């Protein structure tokens, strides 16, 4: 590329400003188009077919979507996705609480902050394994606690009443750490004069937090919302590791349901899987659009 740019022809000199961005963008965009944009369109196309990945695709129009509407697993997944979305948002206040707790200057506090952040750094596979062990009946730490408290053993991951909550708690662990770090950075950058001025006026505690501090933390809250909403809809890893959607499909979520239909040992229903993916994509698009609109407004203002 450097050669092309430095070879100075008259045309190049004149149009350099106009052509340069496209040259800079070309490699990144090519990759992005091939691996992201094009596959989205292809997935939508595949979702109108019956295809096992081995033979030919057969056009069935809206057949997959019609079947989806009558599929109990789809509604279970959808319900669980909503649960994930709502409960996952708890990581935002939880993260804020931890951040407030840690926002002090005592000796060793830096190390404490790092260690509190720890769960976010490790892979969800490891988090899933850790919590599976934590919940395991007979010897899991958590089951033992429950058994001592209630005198009853509860196998969280085998009980359809609790299983989704159990996985969400595992997910909240790293997510809270993430939100915590966002808020810690935010707290570092709030305007101390405003806080002091408010204190002079007699504001303190919750009131001070709500009226003076939180508005200043709005950017951190926004980012935390974005990553949490996206994270909650992506909850594939934990479900796959901890339960594979079980017992009998009760912890199913759309992202895992799609994978299972399209690629698991029991069947390659690529078309049906693609249809589930399209539904998930449309749900996500609602949020993506909201985020983009907000970012666009910021761009316009700056």
């Amino acid at each position: 590329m450097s050669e092309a740019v430095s070879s100075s022809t008259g045309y190049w000199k004149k149009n350099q400003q106009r052509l340069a961005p496209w040259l800079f963008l070309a490699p990144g965009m090519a990759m992005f188009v091939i691996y992201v944009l094009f596959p989205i369109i292809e997935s939508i196309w595949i979702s109108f077919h019956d295809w096992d990945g081995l033979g030919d695709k057969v056009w069935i129009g809206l057949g997959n979507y019609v079947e989806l509407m009558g599929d109990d697993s789809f509604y279970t997944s959808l319900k669980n996705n909503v649960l994930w979305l709502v409960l996952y948002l708890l990581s935002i206040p939880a993260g804020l609480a931890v951040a407030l707790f840690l926002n002090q200057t005592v000796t060793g506090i830096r190390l404490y902050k790092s260690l509190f952040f720890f769960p976010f750094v490790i892979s969800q596979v490891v988090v899933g394994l850790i919590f599976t062990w934590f919940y395991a009946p007979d010897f899991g730490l958590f089951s033992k606690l429950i058994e001592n408290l209630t005198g009853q053993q509860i196998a969280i991951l085998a009980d359809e009443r609790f299983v989704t909550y159990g996985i969400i708690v595992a997910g909240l662990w790293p997510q809270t750490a993430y939100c915590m770090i966002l808020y810690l950075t935010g707290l570092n950058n709030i305007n101390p004069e405003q806080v002091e001025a408010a204190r002079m006026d007699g504001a303190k505690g919750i009131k001070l937090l709500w009226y003076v501090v939180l508005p200043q933390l709005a950017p951190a809250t926004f980012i935390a919302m974005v990553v949490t909403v996206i994270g909650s809809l992506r909850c594939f890893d934990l479900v796959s590791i901890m339960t594979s959607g079980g017992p009998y499909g009760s912890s199913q979520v759309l992202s895992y349901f799609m994978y299972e239909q399209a690629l698991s040992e029991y069947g390659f229903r690529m078309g049906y899987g693609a249809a589930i993916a399209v539904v998930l994509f449309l749900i996500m698009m609602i949020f993506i659009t909201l985020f983009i609109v907000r970012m666009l407004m910021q761009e316009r203002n700056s």
Partner: protein
Amino acid sequence: MFPTPIQKASPFAQTAYKVVLPLALVLWLLPLIGVAITSVRPASDLAAGNYFGIPSGFGGIENYTAVFRDSPIGLYILNSFKVTIPTVIGAVALSCLTGFALAVYKFRANLLLFFMFVAGNFIPFQILMVPVRDMTLKAGLYDTTLGLVLFHVAFQTGFCTLFMRNFIKGLPFALIESARVEGVSEWRIFRYIVLPLMRPAIAALSVLVFTFVWNDYFWATVLVQGQHAMPVTAGLYSLNGQWVAAWHLVSAGSIIAALPPVAMFFLMQKHFIAGLTLGATKG
């Protein structure tokens, strides 16, 4: 500062804070501590039902050697590096270019392209799964680390572009303008003026992408099947299938798999957090 510094509180509150702090940490990391202890428990403890008591001895060396000796985890770790390092280089390099283009030039499609990258970053993987797998199969890259690298580079470019573009926007634009007046070519402006200033961004992105890609599990299961190319996340899950009830081995394996990103985090903490919290401070 908010909340009120603890130094201004009563001596009692100060002591209480110092006591509660380590307790809270232990509680917070309880599952992890449990796993760490289990990983150094002798196998006989588990058979005897000693899950929580003091380990009867130190089985750490034995467990960790067993993991490396009896399972291909060493190979899995190597594969993870083979996927992660080229991805970091590729994604960061591409996004330096795209970020520069979107930050410095004014052209009609600029914002549109920028938001395309941003949106791509948020979409669910599942919508890409079938076509990307199919494409990788057809290209003969299925079950290779290269197949994973190419996808990760493409996908991470979205996030990295967002990051780089915002970073370059924050640089003094006057530098670029004065260079243009002197007739410096656009490539040279990028190479010799902007790129040197991007070092902190490159460092931050490298650590972040390293962690994201190292911890990826979904694509590792979709694009790879055999041991020879399997990264450690997917490998650990398949080992979990073999080590049923052998929690001392599962724990040791988990710790091994978690170590590289953890080390990366502690070594490059400042960059890591700077990268992660981009946008959390300014409106």
